[in-house]
């Protein structure tokens, strides 16, 4: 019975649509464009996020042990009020500006090293200064590292353009420059550069190589030196670092391990997501805006569906009246026109889904060049395709066609046969 009814409804719906081939094709094309753009937008948005996340993971530790001790609740001090004997005042403890340091770092490193799921541990000292080559100078962030350990955090080893990490490790006064930074001061491999540290002292360093991380800000501002030298510049003793970078074997373990390390060592820890929350939330917001715009493409497609259905209802008034006179129920007629909307929506979503798949592939295959000021650099647009995107797009197309079909369907089903047959 249900099957019969469905067959009856679909039979009429399909005949109506095939009777208006050109208009039907145009409307399906409209929905298809909406679906295609949605698939592409999903792919690009997810691609940008994935690209950024991958690049962040490539260049920065997944967990950083920061040189800040965890404190209990801030203690409140009660003091007697200078104004009245019967009053007192509560003052929160004023914390002196402590130097950020992990001490003794070797203990923390061996503690973390022993934990399961840890892939690499790299202590470092971050400091700032001014780098100068001939007449050009530039402020920069310098990270003192143990090159062999740092190489295992992210992909620094693979990002080297000239020289090597190895060369840095055996050159006590070596410096590895970000490719942008090297370009800005005009220094190249084996050039002698002058670094003025936070302490005001001047160090002559040899460029042991250059690296390109893909992040404009990093490549333009960062450099690596040996840990010992950075300790000297920062005035740290040999068992002190400013922080420790950690790489875990799996991304899923990052959050639990971060909490575990903090608990074990007593130092604050920060995951890569926490450290880059600003950047990530910016892109997330950007993606949300894009989705709103894509939804409007669908709304326009919905108008197309409504339009063709209104046309069919108007042209088929007499047929609708005849069907009603032979006893076709209001519900069945409504379903006929809703089915027509659904057919348009689903056909559009299927065609748009296939087109979106190929368009996304095409776009990610195109070579592109990013300007020097790009936040994230690369040689192609990264896209990601997931089944859930196709499911969501199809559901959205169905929703839009149902909403657009509802009005015309209702109108058709409520036509009074006499009004049409008499005319």
């Amino acid at each position, binding site marked *: 019975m249900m099957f019969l009814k469905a067959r*009856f409804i679909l039979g009429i719906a399909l005949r109506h649509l095939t009777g208006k081939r050109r208009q039907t094709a145009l409307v399906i094309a409209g929905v298809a464009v909406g679906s295609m753009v949605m698939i592409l937008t999903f792919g690009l948005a997810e691609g940008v996020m994935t690209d950024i996340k991958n690049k962040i993971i490539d260049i920065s530790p997944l967990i950083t042990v920061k040189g800040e001790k965890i404190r209990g609740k801030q203690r409140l001090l009660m003091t007697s009020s200078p104004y009245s004997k019967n009053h007192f005042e509560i003052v929160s403890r004023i914390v002196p500006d402590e130097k950020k340091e992990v001490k003794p770092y070797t203990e923390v490193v061996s503690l973390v090293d022993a934990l399961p799921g840890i892939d690499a541990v790299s202590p470092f000292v971050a400091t700032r200064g001014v780098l100068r080559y001939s007449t050009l100078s530039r402020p920069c962030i310098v990270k003192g590292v143990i090159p062999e350990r740092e190489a295992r955090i992210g992909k620094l080893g693979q990002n080297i353009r000239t020289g090597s990490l190895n060369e840095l490790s055996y050159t006590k006064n070596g410096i590895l420059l970000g490719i942008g930074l090297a370009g800005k001061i005009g220094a190249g491999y084996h050039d002698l550069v002058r670094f003025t540290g936070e302490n005001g002292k001047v160090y002559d360093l040899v460029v042991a190589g250059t690296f390109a991380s893909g992040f404009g800000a990093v490549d333009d501002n960062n450099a690596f030196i040996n840990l010992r030298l950075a300790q000297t510049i920062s005035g740290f003793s040999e068992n002190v670092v400013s922080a420790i970078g950690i790489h875990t074997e799996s991304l899923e373990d990052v959050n639990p391990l971060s909490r575990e390390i903090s608990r074990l060592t007593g130092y604050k820890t920060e995951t890569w997501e926490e450290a880059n929350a600003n950047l990530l939330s910016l892109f997330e917001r950007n993606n949300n805006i894009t989705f709103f715009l894509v939804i409007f493409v669908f709304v326009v497609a919905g108008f197309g569906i409504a339009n063709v259905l209104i046309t069919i209802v108007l042209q088929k008034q007499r047929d609708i009246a005849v069907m009603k006179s032979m006893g*076709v129920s209001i519900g069945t007629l409504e379903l006929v026109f809703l089915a027509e909307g659904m057919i348009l929506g689903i056909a559009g979503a299927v065609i748009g889904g296939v087109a979106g798949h190929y368009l996304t592939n095409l776009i990610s295959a195109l070579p592109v060049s990013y300007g020097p000021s790009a936040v994230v650099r690369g040689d192609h647009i990264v896209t990601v395709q997931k089944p859930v995107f196709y499911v969501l797009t199809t559901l959205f197309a169905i929703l839009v066609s149902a909403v657009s079909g509802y009005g015309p369907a209702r109108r058709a089903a409520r036509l009074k046969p006499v009004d049409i047959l*008499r005319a």
Partner: protein
Amino acid sequence: MEDALIRLRNVKKELAIRNGGEEIVTTILPDISFDITRGEFTAITGPSGSGKTTLLYLMGGLDKPNSGSVFLDNEEISAMTEEELAEMRNAKLGFVYQFHFLLPEFTAVENVMMPMLARGRAGVNEARRRAVELLSEMGLADKLNNKPNQLSGGQQQRVAVARALANHPMVLLADEPTGNLDSKSAEVIYRLFARLNEETGQTIVVVTHDEHFASETGRILHILDGQLDSDRKLR
């Protein structure tokens, strides 16, 4: 009285026409009552605008009277809901209009199947079997899979008659069924109606202003200004 298949009792029908801001109410049928007996072949005649088509729509449950009652098969159809009316029309009535009003996207046989499938009264195979049988009776056995636009006017109207008969209706209601046909095709339709009435006892009510057609029926109800002017039994 027992045999009255259709009963109209003090039926009043007004039609409101909106003309700009004001509503003009025209009384089409002031007060009309009559019975139609099972097995009768009745013609409703009268000049155009006399209210005969309105009368037919009231009998068919396509329209409702402003007051008075319409009974079909001892049920008051003037008191039914839309959905009850749809079920009633599907089960008990068949309509033929001045124009064939076949659905253009469907073949002859599919058009005839439609009333049977509309409310799941028959399965597809059963509906097709009956449709083929009906069309063959109408002399259209070789036109089963033609679309309406591939048929002549007379053929289209015969398909429409077959469609009206699909669910074995108690009453066949026809509104000027020959009004749009040449005399030869019209003749075929008269014969068809007369034969149906004679052979199967099909109750038929036909609105027409074709005197010749009317004279072939068993009873003529002449309507003038919405009132029963004469009621002549011919047989």
